[in-house]
């Protein structure tokens, strides 16, 4: 097991190098730091001096890959590639274009993101599984048909609609909870309700429909027929046999997204003014703060690969037939 995990972790390294190269190409080769400085300074007729000062301030005043002027080893380290891209491997994110420490910001903003993403995931999972189970219990009836139509309709509604509609309905019309904002400690609870409700509502359509197909796949299996032939009641068959086996694909799917929960929900956070990583990313995109975007790309890739590894491990834990190789 340990050897397998180690091997998987080693395998992640070339992928991360690939990610790093792609972001480096996107950010520094497609447009030179000069172009970026010009964009940040906002004017087409910026003097070269102003550009040079901006570059020096933000550490872009080095050669891209190879510094011929520096002594020995620094020929390779005193470059943009080393400073801005390679240092990401040590989780040294550097400073944002506005001068803040990105690593500190990420550590601070991680928790509000998690506080929204985790309840959304758990509540959504509970609702989706029970609803899917109910549909399967009433399969091939009008409840089944109506539910599927409802789910498809819910899937077809834009996520933005849930956010705007939820904010309007719950926050403005009924004045139940504050529309947006965030607080520390227990006070945060009342700010969390609305984003969580909206997040759950937006995801319920597709996940319930997916789980329904999982259940239906299991229900045609031989062991279910055997269980019925034994004279078990439908309720017992569903809960003890079908649910347990269908949980395998459901849980492994959930495990894959677990690490990404830290990244937060982009739109929901920025809409409800939650100071999480999602709104951090959106703000960075809007302010065109490339350092933050670069850091988030790297972080996202690391978490994604972590999710892949966790999925493989969890497969072996819940399904003994799967062997690690």
């Amino acid at each position, binding site marked *: 097991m340990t050897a397998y995990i180690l091997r998987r972790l080693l395998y992640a390294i070339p992928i991360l190098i*690939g*990610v790093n190269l792609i*972001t480096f190409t996107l950010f520094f080769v497609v447009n030179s730091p000069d172009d970026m400085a010009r964009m940040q300074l906002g004017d087409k007729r910026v003097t070269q001096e102003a550009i040079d000062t901006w570059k020096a301030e933000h550490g872009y005043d080095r050669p891209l890959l190879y510094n011929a002027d520096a002594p020995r080893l620094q020929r390779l380290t005193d470059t943009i590639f080393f400073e801005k891209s390679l240092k990401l491997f040590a989780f040294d994110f550097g400073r944002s274009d506005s001068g803040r420490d990105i690593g500190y910001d990420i550590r601070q903003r991680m928790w509000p993101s998690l506080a929204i993403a985790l309840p959304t995931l758990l509540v959504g999972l509970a609702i989706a599984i029970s609803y899917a189970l109910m549909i399967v219990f009433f399969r091939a009836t009008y409840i089944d048909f109506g539910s599927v139509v409802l789910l*498809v309709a819910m899937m077809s*509604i*834009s996520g*933005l609609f849930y956010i705007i509609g939820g904010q309007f309905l719950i926050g403005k019309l009924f004045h139940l909870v504050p529309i947006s904002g965030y607080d520390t400690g227990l006070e945060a609870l009342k700010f969390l309700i609305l984003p969580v409700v909206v997040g759950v509502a937006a995801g319920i359509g597709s996940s319930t429909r997916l789980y329904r197909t999982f259940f239906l796949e299991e229900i045609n299996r031989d062991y279910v027929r055997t269980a019925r032939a034994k004279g078990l009641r439908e309720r017992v068959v569903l809960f003890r046999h079908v649910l347990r086996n269908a949980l395998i694909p459901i849980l492994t799917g959930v495990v894959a997204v677990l690490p990404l929960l830290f990244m937060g929900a982009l*739109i929901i956070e920025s809409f409800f003014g939650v100071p999480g990583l999602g709104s951090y990313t959106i703000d960075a995109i809007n302010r065109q703060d490339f350092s933050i*975007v670069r850091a988030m790309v790297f972080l996202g*890739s690391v978490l994604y690969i972590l999710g892949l590894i966790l999925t493989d491990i969890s497969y072996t834990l819940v399904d003994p037939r799967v062997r690690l190789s």
Partner: protein
Amino acid sequence: MPVILITDALIFLLIAVGIVFGLYAARHEHLRGPWRQVGRSPVAVAALVVMLFYVGIGVLDSLHFHPRIEPLAEVGSPAATVNEADAVTGPDGKTTPDEQGTDASGSQRSAEQAQEITQAKDTISAAEPGASAPTYSTQIISVLDLLLSGLRERQEKTFSAPFATHLFVKEAIEQPDGSVVRAYPRLEHGGAHLEDPSQRSFDLLFRGLFGAIKGLMVWTAIMAGLIALLGWRRRQSFNDTATALWRGETAVPWRVVLITLAIMLVLSFTAAELGAKYHILGTDKVGEDVFYQSLKSIRTGLVIGTLTTLVMLPAAILLGIMAGYLGGRTDDVIQYLYTTLNSIPGVLLIAAAILMLQVYMTNNADQFESLVERADLRLLFLCIILGVTSWTGLCRLLRGESLKLREVDYVQAARALGVRHSTVIARHILPNVLHIVMITVVLDFSGLVLAEAVLSYVNIGVDPTMNSWGNMINSARLELARDPIVWWSLAAAFLFMFTLVLAANLLADVVRDAFDPRLRSAS
């Protein structure tokens, strides 16, 4: 003078590919069978009819051209007063196409210039029409713009509610006796034909009914034509065919087709009739008709949904099959490639690429002739980036399927007989994975349309000057804070998007059920 934007060219290419593929599928039973099954599903045909309307509007909006300008006269005729000029540009709706084109070109300029052009046109048409060589406006418009030029030109000052006769915000109005009152002023165009605004509901009812009747008449004509055609093909009398059709006894559910068609036709004709005199979905902040914006956004949504798949298909098919069929080192490299691309969060990759494009565009602004071309290039680029982030799923599916197919007897036999790899792939592998490609194309469509809205909201979507549902939502959400709220822009964007995505989702369901052999054997 026709203009072909890059996305236009790709749309026509896509249509051509679709036709070729349709002909190919019609001659191969393993593809024709599932499609026949799709055609027999009532849900699918209803969805298809709705999508046909959307596609029709999208295609009309893809035929771009530079409108012709009549040459300006040296001095405008003094006789042509402002009132006369207004009468020509006024919301007539039944002007000749030529006049509409000229008017449309003028609307983007300042009002003064527009009047000048109209005046000039009056003088020229009076004196000697078409004396000099035709000149073309630098502006690019589409055939849809031409058809909707009435909607496009009737701009108000700012917000107005659907079917409103008065502006949404109060303004200082000078009364005839010289005093100034703050009140809601009448709209310049919406309901301007009404002497007394209180007659509005009667007028709305009357015009709505008139439009509905027009729609029903067109529908009756189409229905009669369809029944006649069906009857001719089945060698039945007209009455027998009609009875069979309305009892739902035909293989293809024509009854559902006709009912959906009736709903769509009545809706569009009523909208057209009312739209000629009112802003049926209100106006936005700068007074532009929301209904017009929603219709223009259809093309953007369709382009994103279809071109993205078109862009990614070659890479996904080629690499997926190669990885699965050839295996070994090739497989490793391709797997590495898509795992790497997949591990970058999609939104961030798009954001990074679009940010870089923005930097490039600001620094090379002189390369783009017009705003439309610039927006078009950005749209194409967005499609490519979305394609880069979404080809991996299909690639993985194809790899798995070709891995299985490689071991199948007939492929082994072909290899043993010395058939080249390329031939095996083309003759044996590709035809057997086409159904996966088709399911993915249909399934991805709705997701991409929805993604456009979210991306535009984050400002990394289509160009802000381009009409799209995402941009409509983005600009309208700030107005929700108003009291009473301005809801119509949002509602219109969501409604149009919902209809398209719902139709696509329903169709995708049926297509998947028809093509997925696993599901077919289960049911």
